[in-house]
């Protein structure tokens, strides 16, 4: 299901498609683009989106430099919502900046 991306890959990046990652369970104040419901959850890198100006800086009128690597991370619905009633194979994919991700154990 994962397609090769034609986007300019980010050269200095920590993760590659297929890597398991955990979103930081952190709740700093300010403008954050990491939804609450996904914090602390473990998923797999679906694709590398490229490097973009850091929205957490842009929001306050800064340049957003250095750019941050943005990934799409795929999570199982059951991982995100332990009481999920739909099919076990249902998925949710979320865009997460690298500084919000840690490497996770497992295949």
């Amino acid at each position, binding site marked *: *299901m994962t*397609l*090769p*991306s*034609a*986007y300019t890959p980010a050269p200095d990046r920590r993760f590659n498609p297929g890597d398991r990652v955990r979103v*930081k*369970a*952190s*709740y*700093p104040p300010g403008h954050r*683009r*990491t*939804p*609450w*419901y*996904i914090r*602390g959850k473990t998923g797999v890198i679906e694709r590398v*989106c*490229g490097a*973009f100006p850091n*929205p957490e800086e842009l929001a306050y009128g800064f340049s957003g430099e250095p750019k941050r690597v*943005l990934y*799409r991370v795929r999570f199982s*619905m059951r991982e*995100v*919502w332990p009481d*999920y*009633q*739909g*099919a076990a*194979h*249902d*998925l*949710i*994919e*979320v*865009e*997460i*900046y690298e500084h919000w991700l840690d490497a996770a154990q497992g295949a």
Partner: protein
Amino acid sequence: MSHDHDHDHPPAKGRDHDEGPPSEHEILSRAMQELLEEKGVLTAEQIRRRMEQFDKDFPTRGARVIAHAWVDPQFKKRLLADGKAACAEFGIDLEADRLIAVENTAEVHNVVVCTLCSCYPRALLGMPPTWYKSENYRKRVVRDPRGVLKEFGTVLPEKVTVRVHDSNADMRYVVVPMRPKQTEGWSEERLAKILTRDALVGVSIPLI
């Protein structure tokens, strides 16, 4: 249950945006519009016309692109690999840096939401509908997508994987629905007519 302390505690959550009294930002925005009108900088009529003009300029472009992808497999391949570049072939300059086109198949159904605000490929699909911006849709489609899709009249078999896309940062999304079998031989123009906005967001499927 043990409670490890390697994380911060979430503060109490704020109020919902489309429920209850208007938020500070909504009040600010309305006050700004009223002031601009009062000072004679803008008229309400100009604002309304601008919104109408936007709707006129953009609404059918997404359908045309997807209809072309239905009849031209090579174009579909390019669209799925790089949505922005494929749209540029149509002379459509997207406001976002990236467009990700996701394809519905017999195995996978895609649906798009922006849980943080209302990110939407406006240059392709026009202004987002009110339901897309509602707290109700944004909150529930990530938690119970099958339930929300059912409310739109879209009931998916258990074996189909529901793939929800949170358009929460710099990407924008468009769904490439499955082409109904009965549409063989249809012109792109005719195909575009069944490619509704809702089908391109993924809450419905094209009906003949």
